[in-house]
């Protein structure tokens, strides 16, 4: 990574924070629990990083693979559990 890339990433980070404020303040209190579990599932995007750690060639040592494996398990739990439970809750709000 060079300095330019870092500044780009930082810009992305800061703009996303502002976007987050705009988006989240529009969610009504009724949906705050599904919002939490839904954003929780999104934070499981660390799975992308976990996959790279678990399977990358620079991490051919056992320690790395095991840490990567743990990261994959936890992130997948986060993603699958989060989206499914959010879907279950939201389905209840939808029906009439």
């Amino acid at each position: 990574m060079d300095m330019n890339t870092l500044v780009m990433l930082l810009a992305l980070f800061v703009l996303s924070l502002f976007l987050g404020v705009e988006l989240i303040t529009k969610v009504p209190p009724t949906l705050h629990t599904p919002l939490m579990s839904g954003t929780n599932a999104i934070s499981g995007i660390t799975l992308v990083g976990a996959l790279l750690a678990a399977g990358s060639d620079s991490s051919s040592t056992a320690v790395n693979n095991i840490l990567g494996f743990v990261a994959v398990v936890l992130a997948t739990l986060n993603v699958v559990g989060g989206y499914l439970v959010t879907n279950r809750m939201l389905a209840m709000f939808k029906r009439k």
Partner: protein
Amino acid sequence: MNITVVNLIYLAAAVLFILGIKGLGKPKTAVRGNLMSAAGMFIAVVVTLFDRSIVSYEYIIAGVVIGSLVGAIIAIKVQMTSMPQMVAILNGFGGGSSLAIALAEYYAKTHIPAGAAAELMAAPFGDGIMGLIAVLAISLTILIGAVTLTGSFVAFAKLQELMKKDYGLPGGPVGNGLLLLVALVAVGALCVEPTNATLITVIVIAALLLGLFLVLPIGGADMPVVIALLNSYSGIAGAFAGFILGNTVLIVAGSLVGTSGLILTKIMCVAMNRSLANVLFGKMAGGGVTVSADEVYGGKVKSAQADEVAMMLETAKRVVIVPGFGMAMAQAQHAVRELMDVLEARGTEVEFAIHPVAGRMPGHMNVLLAEAEVPYEKLIEMERINPTFEETDIAIVIGANDVTNPMAREDKGSPIYGMPILNVDKAKTVIVVKRSLSPGFAGLPNPLFAMDHTYMVYGDGKKAIIEMTTALGSA
């Protein structure tokens, strides 16, 4: 796969996450929003699997299979009343994952195989300021990830009632401050001496302990704040992990989740009229003139039986139901819905008054009542329902206490003075369904219970509501 293509697909995934959260803005579009966000996740994961740097798939397949199975089972089995625990533990998994990624990355950087380029051997994290930033990103991810991991597990244990007492570190906030200081000094030292693995161990241990002792003293009604805050941490840890890996989608998704958790934290704090520091380190009943329960209740509390309440309900034109954590405890949401049905069949208008911190997490009551098929249009927020209590014939409080305490509005000496409450006392008649006169989380007596127009119905919430419904139905 070409790196440009990978990044473009990550961009598409980020857009899907944004549209997904936007969809959560309305109950009608929320299911679709969640599916869009899941689709974003799917494409981000698939494109990563084609990344050139991934060479072995054994650990990946094993991890994905185990995580998916366990995740699906708990998501399908969990009861709606247990949703706060569920969210707490999912936060912990997210934090743990970021922690493991950062540790793996650190290990890879400090165990470069012999024969690698000389410059890589000399400065494994990169040259000058870039190396410094790489080390900082790794150590901060470890710090936040570890705090989130243990903090969430303690929150889970408390919500699941595996742990009933509130423990604190000697010195309270000072002890926590020292732990944070140790961790931050180790982060600083690591920036100077990046290859010193002892420092990483110090950061990990201090942060794990910090998460533990940060949440251990917090309980009960303060839990919504803790869960929202940990939710935010899990996002921030993800965003920092994105800086380690130079991964755009991690940064966007992580910061969205981070802000979401922070905004919910703020909403919860405002709804309790307390600062975040006060929730995390303070005591609810801090100073002020406390009134004894005898002074408030002495001889003034009236009780009623379910059939007497049913008689009052017969002539009511407008009824407002005020649910609290007690409704979740008693699993009374379905009974409450049936009472609503019978009342509506008789032509009575029924609405629900939802305080922002009712229950153990933001929106807890809404989810329970949605499960019982109460239409969400009937769940009215505090600001909108408060002016209507004066035209309400009967307010039924079930399992709520502090959020209805008029002392918060009237008694300047009260520790909860200034906390926004539901103006239940303004209703013509108030029915309080409660096991006993025991105080709520704030430990204060509630003058509402002793008012002239208030009747207490003692007993199990679900049973009491069912009895009212039966009596009313046969009237």
